[in-house]
């Protein structure tokens, strides 16, 4: 085994860890809200036992809030499950639109912390073959660096298209130039993902061709 092999594994592991940490944070928030709402129901019950009149619409609202959080938690866990299964096969049929949507969802917290809005534009289905995990890692890294470039209150648009057997993913809305070392890192992941990256500074866009 060469010296670069453990490093390659570690890059993937770091990405897996980063996403898992963001998921655990979101789930903690969901649990914290359910905890407070359930606590309020308990407080009201104790007060009712002491003679306070219960307000049924208020109780219904609290129950709806809890149900809403359970739904939110379920969505997070579904995404976590899809992400975890992306390491099952090294190469398989890839739905790029679905995969990009998943990465955007997984990076919601990071985007929110950086105050950047990410939108996946409507369009055709884009399919191909590849390693889903590495492609996700590439999209996530590209998005993170694009968020830094877009800056606070920035808006990134992602477009997917397909022509003559080539799939193209475009990130627009960048503002500052992406540093050389970050471009080199994207290039390196892109090679593993079977793609070719291009940065067009005058248009402030990042392009990946698969």
């Amino acid at each position, binding site marked *: 085994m060469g010296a670069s092999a453990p490093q390659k594994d570690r890059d993937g592991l770091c990405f897996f860890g980063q996403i898992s*940490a963001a998921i*655990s*944070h*979101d*789930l*903690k*928030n969901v*649990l*914290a*809200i*359910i*905890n*407070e*709402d359930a*606590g*309020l129901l308990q*407080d009201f019950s104790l*007060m009712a036992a002491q003679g306070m009149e219960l307000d049924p619409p208020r109780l219904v609202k609290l129950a709806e*809030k809890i149900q809403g*959080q359970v739904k939110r938690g379920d969505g997070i866990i579904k995404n976590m499950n899809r992400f975890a299964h992306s390491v099952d096969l090294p190469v398989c049929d890839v739905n790029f639109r679905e995969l990009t949507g998943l990465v955007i969802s997984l990076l919601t*917290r990071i985007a*929110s*912390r*950086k*105050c950047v809005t990410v939108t996946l534009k409507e369009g055709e289905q884009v399919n191909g073959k590849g390693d889903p995990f590495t492609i996700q890692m590439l999209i996530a890294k590209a998005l993170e660096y694009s968020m830094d470039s877009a800056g*606070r209150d920035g808006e990134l648009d992602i477009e997917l298209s397909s022509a003559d057997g080539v799939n193209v993913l475009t990130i627009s809305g960048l503002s500052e130039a992406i540093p050389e070392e970050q471009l080199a890192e994207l290039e390196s992941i892109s090679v593993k993902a079977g793609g070719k990256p291009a940065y067009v500074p005058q248009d402030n866009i990042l392009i990946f061709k698969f």
Partner: protein
Amino acid sequence: MAEKVLLIDDEKEFVEGLAERMELRGMNVTACTNPQEALDKVDAESFDAIVLDLQMPGIDGIEALKHIKKTRPEMQVILLSGHATVEKGIEAMKLGAMDFVEKPADINVLTDKIKKAQAKKMIIVEEKTGEKVKDILSHKGW
């Protein structure tokens, strides 16, 4: 005396629920989901305890803590996070946070910490007032 608390967290539903429960326990709570607005409130008025989320959009909890300790060192900060790590906890304590609580928080534990924060702040304010009085007495000729 009712504890005056500033609650800062970007999760609106969490802030609403916790604030209501704290108010039911006799506290005077100001809730804020925008970290910059919260820091403006810190600059404008006094609080016995500030319950502060560690990760928020724009300004993170550590940055907010640094600002609070620099501008209003007497205010006691309890960091609240869903992302508790030992390093972050140690960093926060070194920067002057009074305590660190992991989400989901136990309301009784949090209430207890808020009461301790109020007592600690009162001691600091009393000490400061005592020093001011001493200073005035030593400079005046009566």
